[in-house]
């Protein structure tokens, strides 16, 4: 049940999340000459968060392309290149700037295959740092993944570990269709075991990070990490939480969630995007529409971002998104209600 890399013997070492992403890009570029990266300050600067790092020195400026500041233009250029035989990886400097590129992603990339009668495809990956916690305020801290999860024709993934970051990125690059790859800024320095060899993680598969019997906690991105830490706190109080890292929000692995809910009878969904009309609403509705609903012993609980633009002040910023202690409190609350 627990997801352990199968080929972990010998060739595994510790990498940061950022290094794992860089390694995936490097291996994809070595293996396939059509793979290239474009984005702002990804060359000599190495990327705003240092993710592309030395790739410019390994692959040259023709395959690691520093672009002008023109998000709509570079997204469109990536779509056009993808439509005609290349496999572009577009880095947007912050995921907030996807709002400027949205036309090409939503109206073009997502629709081309269907609209053209299945006779074309857009093998495009859009990588972008998202999330709050760095004091970057309202225009540099959003979690907009749910917007794109609403669009048929886009796959949306959110890795939360270095292992997943590499495996999901390699799968995204292989994918013949557009994949939006939301990285979390606070995870870039997180270390974890990553095999040297290339490997792929199927897009659309959740993973059970911790088995438990009392409550299911589904988290996305950094919230999966916080949920796991919260589960340890809960265990100390005699509560066994099952933690699911959703990994992809489109396609969404609802089956893994249903299976868990049938076992635990309680569900908490935790995500950083604004609570209303978000990932939590979709999961809650999916459970309510399924046979897992009959197993519920308590109302489903959503923990999402507050209904505010992200504030600058660090205390406010923390208060605006779920923290580990909020998850613990929610679980205790849910179980207490349940006992009454």
């Amino acid at each position: 049940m627990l997801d352990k890399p199968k080929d972990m013997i010998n060739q595994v070492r510790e990498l940061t999340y950022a290094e794992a992403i860089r390694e995936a890009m490097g291996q994809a570029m070595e293996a396939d000459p059509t793979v290239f990266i474009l984005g702002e300050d990804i060359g000599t600067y190495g990327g705003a968060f240092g993710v592309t790092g030395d790739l410019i020195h390994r692959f040259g400026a023709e395959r690691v392309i520093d672009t002008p500041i023109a998000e709509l233009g570079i997204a469109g250029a990536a779509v056009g290149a993808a439509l005609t035989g290349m496999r572009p990886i577009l880095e947007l400097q912050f995921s907030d700037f996807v709002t400027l590129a949205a036309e090409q992603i939503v109206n073009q990339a997502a629709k081309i295959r269907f609209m053209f009668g299945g006779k074309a495809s857009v093998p495009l990956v859009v990588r972008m740092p998202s999330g709050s916690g760095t004091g970057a305020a309202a225009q540099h801290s959003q979690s907009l993944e749910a917007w794109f999860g609403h669009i048929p024709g886009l796959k949306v993934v959110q890795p939360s570990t270095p292992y997943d970051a590499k495996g999901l990125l390699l799968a995204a690059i292989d994918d013949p269709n557009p994949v939006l790859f939301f990285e979390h800024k606070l995870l870039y320095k997180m270390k974890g075991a990553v095999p040297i060899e290339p490997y792929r993680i199927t897009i659309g598969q959740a993973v059970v990070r911790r088995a438990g019997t009392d409550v299911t906690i589904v988290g996305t991105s950094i919230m999966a990490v916080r949920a796991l830490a919260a589960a340890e706190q809960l265990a100390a109080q005699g509560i066994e939480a099952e933690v699911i890292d959703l990994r992809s929000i489109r396609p969404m692995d609802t089956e893994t969630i249903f299976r868990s809910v049938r076992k635990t009878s309680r569900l908490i969904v935790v995500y950083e995007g604004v609570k209303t009309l978000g990932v939590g609403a979709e999961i809650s509705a999916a459970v309510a529409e399924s046979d897992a609903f009959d197993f519920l012993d308590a109302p489903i609980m959503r923990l999402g971002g507050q209904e505010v633009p992200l504030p600058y002040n660090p205390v406010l910023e923390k208060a605006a998104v779920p923290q580990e202690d909020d998850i613990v409190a929610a679980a205790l609350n849910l179980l207490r209600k349940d006992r009454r």
Partner: protein
Amino acid sequence: MSSSVEALRPNQRPELANLSDDTILESYRAMKLIRRFEERAEESYMRGFIHGTMHLSIGQEASAVGVVVALRASDTLTSTHRGHGHSIAKGADPALMFAEFFGKQTGYCGGRGGSMHIADVESGNLGANGIVGGGLPIAVGAALSAKMRKSDQVCVCFFGDGASNEGAFHEALNMASIWRLPVVFVCENNKYGMSMDIARSSAVPDIAQRAVSYAMPGISVDGNDVAAVRAVAETAIARARAGEGPSLIECKTYRIRGHSKSDRNFYRTKEEIEEWRGRCPIERLRNEVLGLGRLSADRFDAIDAAIEVEMEVAIEFAKASPNPDPARLTEDVYA
């Protein structure tokens, strides 16, 4: 009138001869205030009082001051992520800016915005902007509004060389031109958009050349010469106010510090930075004026001393100010 002033000061270049002693001292004071504000902000950052990042305009003070000091108090401006100078030149209170940087309730945005979002709409500062190019269409809207309200307000729109590659730049200039709006576009060309040299990011070497496509005057000026910036700004502002439409001014300048606090400067040379350090707009004004014997050094020294005191008081105010109350997090959220 200006030619008679020139006649009064025949040994001076016209840009400087045209400036009164008061304007020279006001411009010097504004530039020095911006410089010291940013140096003190940098120091506060090192000491851990500031969370997040900051974009410093050290070395670029003349473009902010040359343009903004030529405005009327009722005029408006849109600023950028590198906007401390624009705000201070427009009259922002450094104490409220420090308070904002420190995330305090008393800051311009109540601690919610930080360095990248300083705004004071009442005084005509329509805001710094975290989105490159974000202010360009907003300036067009402010100028449209001024025209519709039949006010004689002018809007100055600051943006960088990098921003001029965004679609928003082209859309904004075209609209401003077809509607003959009272807006002055000021490109602060500091040679780089983050690590991207303008030679690699722009098809033309001078952003001013792009004005041709939008049928407006475009002029490049030495952005480290406050008197020269002021001269071209006055012409463009007068044209806008007279209902003759927009202009594009390109101030060629240089940022001495890195792009933000995390820049390692891999994309430029130490020699280049040093060369530009030698063109400090503040020292340049002071030395030129002293060299001409127009004003005595103690006038400048007195300004410097007053700024030191003002900075000290402002930082103490910011430190002593309360943090915002987390219970009021959702205040101002109406939907």
